């Protein structure tokens, strides 16, 4: 049995089509309009920081263990939920001026800096292209400190549905 | 084939335990005395559950047993356990 024939829970990562079936990924019209959050946490685990931190009540949870769902009408793309998720599974996505943007949590070295060119990786860890670190990129305060929230820009907007990690080249 | 160690303190391998069980020592207390398993420095912290798994395979059940636990459960020097005799 190859890795492709396994389901996501056996494989350890999702494919884009599996997440689309679960209504996790926002449609193209939404991300072309504004930056919105998407939650790639699909299991029932006891956890609620995302719903608690959202000031616009855009994240709904049907109890402590239910996965959160984002109301893309209400979401303003403020990045608070990205910073606070313990599973590092919340991302922001936007398509603007023909480029794709993904905002992700980042907790490895070297520290990210706006302007850096980085490798882009998809959910399986495969390098799918190169991108540039842009704003909003900042270090979270409070309990999530010293986690970074990093936004990366990519020339191919379709990649914003795939890119979930970056690799900053060593100096 | 390289050795598969079960009791790391006394170097008891999986085949040693299986041979002892097949020879008739199929109870934890007798198995412990013939092989030395769980009687080493760690007192079974790493090997007791492995030994019970092997025994369980032979007996076909989950066995509710640990070795008899007696104080001291942490290493102490003998000197700190004796009481000075009062001399007049």
């Amino acid at each position, binding site marked *: 049995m190859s890795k492709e024939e396994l389901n996501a829970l*056996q494989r350890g990562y999702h494919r884009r089509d599996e997440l689309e079936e679960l209504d996790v990924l926002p449609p193209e019209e939404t991300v072309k309009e504004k930056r919105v959050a998407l939650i790639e946490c699909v299991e029932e685990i006891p956890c609620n920081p995302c719903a608690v931190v959202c000031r616009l009540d855009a994240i709904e949870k049907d109890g402590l263990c239910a996965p959160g769902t984002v109301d893309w009408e209400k979401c303003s793309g403020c990045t608070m939920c990205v910073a606070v998720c*313990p599973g*590092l599974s919340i991302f922001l996505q936007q398509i603007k001026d023909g480029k794709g943007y993904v905002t992700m949590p980042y907790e490895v070295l070297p520290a990210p800096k706006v302007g850096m060119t980085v490798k882009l990786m998809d*959910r399986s860890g495969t390098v799918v292209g190169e991108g540039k670190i842009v704003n909003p990129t900042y270090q979270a305060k409070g*309990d999530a400190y010293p986690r970074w929230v990093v936004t990366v820009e990519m020339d191919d907007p379709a990649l914003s549905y795939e890119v979930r990690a970056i690799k900053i080249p060593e100096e | 084939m390289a050795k598969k160690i079960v009791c790391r303190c006394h170097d008891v391998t999986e085949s040693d335990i299986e041979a002892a069980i097949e020879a008739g020592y199929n109870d934890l207390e007798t198995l412990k005395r013939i092989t030395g398993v769980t009687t080493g420095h760690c007192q079974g912290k790493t090997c007791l559950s492995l030994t019970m798994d092997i025994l369980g395979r032979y007996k076909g059940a989950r066995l509710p047993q640990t070795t008899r636990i007696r104080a001291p459960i*942490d290493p102490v020097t003998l000197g700190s356990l004796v009481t000075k005799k009062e001399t007049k």
Partner: protein
Amino acid sequence: MVDWRIYDHPILEFDRGKEVTIYLDGKPMKAYESETVAAALYANGLREFSKSIKYRRPRGFFCAIGRCSACMMEVDGVPNVRTCVAMCKEGMQIKRQKYPADYLNPILNLMKLPPAVYMRLMTRPSFIYKPAMTVMRELTGLGKFKKTLPGPAPTTMGSEGTLETDFLVVGGGPAGMQASIEAGQRGANIIIIDDKDRLGGQLLKQTHTFFSDVKYAAGKRGFKLGEQMIAQLSELPNVKVLTETAAVGYYPKENVMLMKRPGNATLKVKAKKYLVATGAYEKTLVFENNDIPGVYGAGGVQTLLNVFGVKPGNRGILLGTGNVALMVAYHLIQAGIEVAGVYAPSFRRVRGYFVHAAKIQRHGVPIVTRHTIVKALGKDEVKGAIMTRLNPDYTPAEGSQFHVDCDFICIGVGLNPAYDLVQLFNPQMVNNGTLGGMVPIRDKTFRFAPNAYIAGDCGSIEEATTAMLEGGLAGLYVTEALGRGDEGVTAKIEEYTHTLEEDRGSPFSTRLKAAIEEITVEDIEEVLN
């Protein structure tokens, strides 16, 4: 000079304290006051700490918290010191415990000697036994005793006297600390002990942010939560904290807990109520060549990495896909160490939370289910591993073996609840696989003996967040049992119980909940009489 210490870390700043020099077999080594001897020696490149008794196999550390006894060396003349919990001091003399049989190791390893043969050879006739054992001890064995040991003179039993208190908490992890906070805030006199030099238990090495409810722990990093709880305890004047203190025995007839203190001293404590929150021991696996330096427990690697800031190697693999193994893989990535893969024999799914798997997979670490390890390669150190794919009936699939390059192997296959102190209270024990192993029957107020309570991993293997909640509940029930209960206490008990139920509301906890119901009775005194 070799230095495996980490100086740049994305989450932690290592305040190692004053630099000191310690000596290994006479050679000076750089160490720090806040490091254990094992961590300092490991940072200087030492991999083989001791040799096994019979085959004289090289052994490295495994658990790194003072349980498995693989790291024993002679420290300042005292033999068999567990170096993973001994703290470094300036000028410390550390010696590897060597024996003549060490030179016979290559031959011994090819032989298959009967178990415990060194205890059985030449026991008859009786006049031969004593000289034969002297020779046998010189050939094998661990540690040489001198006529008088250096260090403080042996003291008498109970040299620090007897203390009486309301509530003795054994174990300073999340369960023990939360119990002390809840009972301490309501006026009980409490002594909390831990065998390490600081409280915190497993929280100290957890750099990731926790799940559960924001009200208690969610979003907080484990070690920060630990620091918070330690600070809360230090503000309670009725809570006495004793570190480097290990429970040695409990005597029900006299109702005395005997504990050892630094400097060969012993202390007796008589308490009205006891809480046993001593956590768990790491499980290991049986495979070919499974006990050479480089095969470590995942928790041991986590301690080395996050508490002492020492890298375990350059490239490692993990065995097991539970939360611990997935988390340690992430810690290794954060420390800049390559992880070749995470392997487990499970067929249905990754055993831990999916989000833990997803966040290491996207960094390029392959999660490989349906595989297991066959053999660790290497003689004195791990040089690689042979893995195999499994058939659906868990037998190795023909021709599917492959080689993985690595210099350490982390075993993260589960924990065994600590069953020793618990059994000295004469409880009723059961062997429950879902809960991790041997656990005592307990009642709805967490009692497993008329005057003793249990909380955390010691009673059932779960998470730090549930340990905290169970500990808090036990502390509140003790408060009631001591006659200090009131409406506030009852309300808090309801709040904790509700959160604990919600925490266990996910499918991950279905079997655990059922197992806990199986071992919970109405009143423990009825069961034990």
